[in-house]
C-alpha cells in the first residue's frame, strides 16, 4: 500500500508518554520548532501523554516524587518534601505557581503550542490501545487527529531522521 506522504523533507517523530504540565513542554516545543524549520513531524501520544490530545486541557504539575523540582521563591530555589507535596491543595498550589512563572517568563502555554503544532501540520496520532485501556472517549479528543497503533508509529519512525521518546 502506498504511504500517505512522500516528502523529501527531513522528518522527526516523537513518542509522548507524559501528560503533566511540565512534561508537556519538551515534545511540543521540539515538534513546533522542527515544523517551523521545515521538518515533517509526527507525534504519537500514548499512556499519560494521550491526555494532551483532549479538547479541553487541564494540566497539573506535582512536586511529589520529584526532588529535582525546585521553584524560584524569594530569591532562593525551594524544593518540597514528599510529605508536604502530598497534602491536599499543595498540588494545586504548585500548579498555580508554575503557571505564574510560565506567564511571567514569556513561555507559551501548552494550548498555544498545541495550536501551533496543528497549524504547522504536525501529524498527531493517539494510541488506540491507551483509549481502550483507560476508557477514553474518542469524542473527548481533538477531532482532527488520527487514532492508530504501534505499527503505524514504527512505519513512520523507519522513515524519520530523528526519533525521540519523551
Amino acid at each position: 500500500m502506498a504511504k500517505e506522504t512522500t516528502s523529501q523533507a527531513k522528518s522527526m517523530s516523537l513518542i509522548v508518554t507524559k501528560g503533566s504540565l511540565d512534561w508537556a513542554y519538551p515534545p511540543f516545543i521540539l515538534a513546533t520548532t522542527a515544523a517551523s524549520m521545515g521538518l515533517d513531524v509526527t507525534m504519537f501520544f500514548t499512556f499519560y501523554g494521550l491526555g494532551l490530545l483532549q479538547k479541553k486541557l487541564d494540566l497539573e504539575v506535582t512536586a511529589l516524587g520529584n526532588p529535582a523540582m525546585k521553584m524560584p521563591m524569594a530569591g532562593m530555589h525551594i524544593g518540597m518534601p514528599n510529605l508536604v507535596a502530598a497534602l491536599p491543595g499543595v498540588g494545586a498550589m504548585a500548579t498555580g505557581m508554575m503557571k505564574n512563572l510560565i506567564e511571567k517568563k514569556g513561555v507559551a502555554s501548552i494550548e498555544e503550542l498545541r495550536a501551533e503544532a496543528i497549524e504547522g501540520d504536525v501529524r498527531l496520532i493517539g494510541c488506540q490501545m491507551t483509549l481502550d485501556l483507560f476508557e477514553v472517549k474518542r469524542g473527548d479528543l481533538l477531532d482532527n487527529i488520527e487514532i492508530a497503533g504501534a505499527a503505524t508509529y514504527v512505519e513512520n519512525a523507519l522513515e524519520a531522521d530523528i526519533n525521540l521518546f519523551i
Partner: protein
Amino acid sequence: MADQQLDAKGLNCPLPILRAKKAIKSMDTGATLEVEATDPGAIKDFAAFCRVTGNELLESSEEDGGIYRFLIKKSG
C-alpha cells in the same frame, strides 16, 4: 531598513523562532526580516534556524539593554 519587523521581546523559546517563521512565510523571496528579541538563547537558535532552513542570517547583534537583533533574508 528591513522589509518587515518582528518584535519578539519578552518571548521565550521557542516563540521567537515560531513567530519569525510565520513572518518569513508571508514574505517574498529576497525580502528581509528584522527580529528583536530578549531571549539569550535566540543567538544560537536563529543561526541554527537559518542554517537548516536555508534563509540567510545577514546580521546578529546585541544592542544595549539586553536586546538581540537579527536580520534574516528569505531565500528560495
